[in-house]
C-alpha cells in the first residue's frame, strides 16, 4: 500500500488534466449567460428615462395601489399553487415510484403530457371547458339538471380558477423531482425500520418522507417560482377575472408608452423573493445529511398496495382529468370541427383545420426551428447544469455558492422581462445576436437552467462522493470522475433533466414573443399569433402536434443507452 500510493497520486500529473479549463469555461459561460441580462435589468430598474440614477421606480412599486394589488394576488397564487402541487404530486410520485400500482408508466406519460402543454394553451382549453356561460362542462351541467342559463357549475374566470389551471401545468415539476428522488432511496433503510418493528406508517413518517423531503421542498419551491413568474395562463384568465398578476401588470408596463424601468424594478423584487426562499430552503436542508447512494446499494423495495390498488388508480387518473383528458378532449374537438363550441356530431367532423394549420407558411419553419432549439437547449443545458451542480455539490471550486446562485437566479425573472433584457444585452457589441436563433437559444438556456440545476442538485444530494473519491484515488481527474462515475449514476436524473429542458423550451412563450423575428419563429409564437386572429382550430392542431413530437422524443431519450447500463 505504501508503495502503490505515490504512483496513484503521481499518475494524474502525467496526463493532461482538462478539468480546470473545462470547469472554468462552463462557469464563465454561466456568468455571461446570467449576469449580462441581469446587469441591464438593474441598470433599467435604477434609472429614469433619461439615464440618470433614481429610486423612483421602487417608490412607485411600493406606493401605487395599482401595483400592490397584483403583488398580493401573485403571492397568493404562487403559495396556493406550491401547496396544491405538493399535495397532488407527492402522493402520485410515491405511488408511481414506490408501490406496485399498475400503469405507472402510463401515469408518467400523462404527467409528461400535462407538462408539455404550454400554460396558455391549457388556459385556452379550460376556457372552452369551463367559461361560465359557453363552457362545455357548464352547458352539460345545465342540460343534465334542466337549469336556467344563470346556473354555473364552474367559473374559470376567478382567482381559484386561475390557481387551478396554473397548478394543472405546474405539478409535473414536483412530480418528477419527487418520483426520481424516491426511486433513488434504497430499500435497506426502510427494511431496517421494519425489522426493528416499526409499522408502515412510522417507517413512512420517519424514513421515507424525510428522505424525500429535499425533493418535495425543491419541488414546492420550483412550483412557487414558476407560478410567480408565469405569464401564459394569467394572460388568458386574469383579466376577465377582474384582477392583475405581477406578470400581466409587467406586460402592461411594456405597452405604449413603455415603462421598462418599472417593469425591471418589479422583476428585481421577484428576484429578491427568490433569493430569500432559496436561503430558507438551504437552511432547512442544510441541517441534515441525505446521502443515500453509496458504493453498496440495494434496490428500492416496492410497497404492495393490495386492496388499495383501485383507489390509487382512481386517485391518479381522476386527477389527470384536469390537466390532460378534459383539455385535450376539448382541443381535439376544436381541431376536428368547424367551431369549438357547437354540439358534438359526426357531421361536424372536418380536416380543414389540420390542412389550414400546415398550409400556413409559418408553421413548418416554426416546427423546424422549435425542434432544433429544443434539442440544442436540452443538450447544452443539461451539460451546463451537470457541471454547475457538480461544482456546487462537491464545493470543488472557489465561489461555488455564487455559481449555484447564478444558476438559480433566472427563475425569478419573468420571461417577458428576460426577453427584453436579452434583447438589450445581445443587440450591441460584443454579442450581436438579434434576429438569429442563437438569441433564442440563450434565452431558453437561461430560462431552463434553474429547474435543470435544481433537479440535478437534488440528485447530487443523494450521491455520496465515495465512488468519485475511489476513482480519483485510482488516478482519474475530476472531469473523468464526473464523466465516468458520477454521470452514469445520475443517468435517470440526466435524462429527465434533458427531457425537462426539451419540454420547457417547447412550451416557452413569454421570452420568445419578445425575441422572435420572421425567420426565427417558433411554434409557441405562431400559436400566440393564431390566438390573436382567433384561429382556435389551428391552435388545437399545433398543440396536439407539439404533444406528439414531445412524446416521440421523450420516449426515444429514455431508451438511449447513452451512459452505459442504467439502474432499471
Amino acid at each position, binding site marked *: 500500500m505504501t508503495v502503490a500510493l505515490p504512483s496513484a497520486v503521481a499518475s494524474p500529473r502525467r496526463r493532461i488534466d482538462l478539468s480546470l479549463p473545462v470547469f472554468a469555461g462552463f462557469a464563465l459561460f454561466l456568468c455571461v449567460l446570467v449576469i449580462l441580462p441581469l446587469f441591464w435589468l438593474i441598470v433599467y430598474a435604477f434609472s429614469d428615462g433619461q439615464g440618470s440614477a433614481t429610486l423612483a421606480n421602487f417608490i412607485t412599486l411600493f406606493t401605487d395601489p395599482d401595483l400592490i394589488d397584483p403583488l398580493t394576488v401573485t403571492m397568493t397564487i404562487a403559495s396556493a399553487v406550491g401547496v396544491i402541487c405538493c399535495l397532488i404530486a407527492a402522493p402520485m410520485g410515491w405511488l408511481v415510484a414506490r408501490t406496485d400500482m399498475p400503469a405507472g408508466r402510463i401515469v408518467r406519460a400523462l404527467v409528461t403530457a400535462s407538462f408539455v402543454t404550454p400554460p396558455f394553451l391549457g388556459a385556452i382549453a379550460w376556457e372552452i371547458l369551463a367559461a361560465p356561460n359557453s363552457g362545455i362542462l357548464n352547458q352539460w351541467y345545465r342540460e343534465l339538471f334542466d337549469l336556467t342559463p344563470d346556473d354555473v357549475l364552474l367559473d374559470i374566470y376567478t382567482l381559484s380558477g386561475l390557481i387551478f389551471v396554473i397548478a394543472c401545468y405546474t405539478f409535473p415539476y414536483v412530480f418528477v423531482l419527487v418520483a426520481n428522488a424516491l426511486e433513488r432511496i434504497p430499500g435497506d433503510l426502510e427494511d431496517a425500520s421494519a425489522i426493528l418493528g416499526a409499522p408502515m406508517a412510522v417507517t413512512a413518517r420517519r424514513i421515507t418522507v424525510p428522505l424525500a423531503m429535499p425533493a418535495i421542498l425543491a419541488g414546492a419551491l420550483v412550483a412557487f417560482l414558476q407560478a410567480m413568474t408565469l405569464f401564459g395562463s394569467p394572460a388568458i384568465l386574469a383579466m376577465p377575472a*377582474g384582477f392583475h398578476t405581477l406578470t400581466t401588470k409587467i406586460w402592461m408596463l411594456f405597452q405604449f408608452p413603455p415603462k421598462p424601468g418599472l417593469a425591471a424594478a418589479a422583476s428585481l423584487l421577484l428576484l429578491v423573493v427568490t433569493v430569500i426562499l432559496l436561503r430558507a430552503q438551504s437552511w432547512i436542508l442544510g441541517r441534515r445529511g441525505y446521502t443515500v447512494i453509496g458504493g453498496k446499494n440495494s434496490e428500492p423495495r416496492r410497497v404492495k398496495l393490495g386492496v388499495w390498488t383501485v383507489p390509487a388508480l382512481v386517485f391518479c387518473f381522476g386527477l389527470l382529468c384536469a390537466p390532460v383528458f378534459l383539455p385535450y378532449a376539448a382541443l381535439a374537438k376544436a381541431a376536428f370541427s368547424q367551431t369549438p363550441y357547437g354540439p358534438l356530431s359526426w357531421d361536424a367532423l372536418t380536416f380543414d383545420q389540420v390542412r389550414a394549420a400546415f398550409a400556413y407558411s409559418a408553421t413548418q419553419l416554426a416546427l423546424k426551428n422549435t425542434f432544433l432549439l429544443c434539442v440544442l437547449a436540452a443538450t447544452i443545458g443539461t451539460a451546463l447544469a451537470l457541471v454547475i451542480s457538480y461544482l456546487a455539490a462537491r464545493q470543488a471550486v472557489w465561489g461555488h455558492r455564487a455559481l449555484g446562485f447564478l444558476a438559480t437566479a433566472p427563475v425569478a425573472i419573468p420571461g417577458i422581462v428576460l426577453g427584453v433584457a436579452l434583447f438589450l444585452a445581445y443587440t450591441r457589441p460584443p454579442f450581436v445576436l438579434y434576429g438569429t436563433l442563437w438569441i433564442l437559444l440563450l434565452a431558453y438556456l437561461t430560462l431552463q437552467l434553474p429547474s435543470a440545476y435544481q433537479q440535478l442538485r437534488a440528485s447530487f444530494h443523494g450521491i455520496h462522493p465515495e465512488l468519485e473519491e475511489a476513482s480519483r484515488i485510482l488516478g482519474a481527474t475530476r472531469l473523468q470522475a464526473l464523466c465516468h462515475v458520477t454521470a452514469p449514476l445520475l443517468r435517470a436524473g440526466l435524462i429527465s433533466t434533458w427531457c425537462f429542458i426539451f419540454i420547457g423550451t417547447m412550451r416557452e412563450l413569454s421570452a420568445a414573443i419578445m425575441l422572435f423575428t420572421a425567420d426565427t419563429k417558433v411554434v409557441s409564437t405562431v400559436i400566440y399569433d393564431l390566438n390573436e386572429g*382567433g384561429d382556435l382550430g389551428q391552435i388545437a392542431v399545433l398543440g396536439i402536434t407539439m404533444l406528439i413530437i414531445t412524446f416521440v422524443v421523450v420516449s426515444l431519450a429514455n431508451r438511449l443507452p447513452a451512459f452505459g447500463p442504467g439502474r432499471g
Partner: protein
Amino acid sequence: MVAAALLAIGLGAGVARAEPPAASPVTPALIEAATKEGKVVWYTSAELRAAERVAKAFEAKYPGITVQVERSGAERNFQRIAQEYGSGIRVADVLESSDASHFIVWKRQGWLAPYVPEDVAKYWPADQKDPDGMFATWRSTFSPMGYNTKLLKAEDAPKSFADLLDPKWSGKIVKAHPGYSGTILTATFEIARDLGWPYLEKLSKQHVMQTQSATDPPKKLAAGERLVMADGSEYVLTELKEDGNPVEPIYPTEGTPFITGPSGVMAQAPHPNAARLYQSFVFSVEAQQLIVDVGAMRSLHPLVKEKAGRVPLKDIKAMKDDPQAVESQVEAIKRKYTQYFRT
C-alpha cells in the same frame, strides 16, 4: 454659433415645408433601383392572412423583390422599433401600425421619411394624411358594439352605447382594455370625448367581462360567453360572422369609434427604393381591395368596392379620430380607466 446656425437652418426647413411634398410616381428608375435592392422589410400589425396576401401580390407584380413580413401586435412592433433604434439596428423599411398615435411619436423622433404615393395625393382626404407627407392612413376599422344572434333577438339588442347602462345587461357585457390594445385606447378616447367619462364610470358598474386584446370580445361573443360586446375589432367580428358564427355588429346611434392605421417609410430604411415602391403599392387600388376582401378592413380609396353583406363605410356614423390628442392623453386615459374598471 454653429448650433445656432443649424437651428436656423432647421427652422427654415420647417417653414419651407408648409406645402406638402409633391406626389412621387412609380418610375421605371425606381423599379430598377428597388429590384437591385431585392428586398423590403415590412413591419405590420395587419391580420396575418391579409398581410401575407398583400406581400405576395407585391412579389407577383415586381418579380425579384421579396417582402419580409414582420407581423406582430401594434404595441409589440412599436416597442420593437424603439428597442432596435435604441440599439442602432436599422432593419425596418416600411412601418404600418393599427395605433395611429405611434406615428406621431415616430415622426417626432425623426424616424420617418417624407414620401407621398400618387394614390394618396389624388384620393386621400386631407385629414387622413400627414401634412409633411410622412404617413397616411393605410387601412381603417371600427370598434363597434355587437351581439350574439343565437342568444338575443335583433329587436332586443341594444342600439346605442347609452342602452348598455340598462340594468338588464349587467353581467352580460364583454369589452377589451385600453391598457393593452391600441384600438381600444383610441376607442376609449373617442367615447370619453363624445359621451364623457361619467358614461364609462356607469358602464364599469355593469359587471363587465374584461379582456385584453381588441380581438377578444368578438370571439367571446361568438362563443356565447357574453350576449353583448361594448367594443372590439370590427374586422374580427366581420370575419367571424362570414365564417358562420352567430354574431352581428351594432353601429351605435351616438357614432362608432373610428380607428385608423397609417403606413410610412423609414428615413433610414436599408432598402430605400424598395421601401418607396412598396409604400406606393400598398396604397394602390389592388392592395387596398385585398385588405377589404381578405382582411375585412375599411379602405379610404374611393375606387375600392365594398363586399356585399357588409355595412358600407359611408353609411356608418364615425366618431372623429384624433391621434395627436390620443398621443398626448395616453397616461390620463389609462389611469382613469383603471380607476373605474379596477383592472
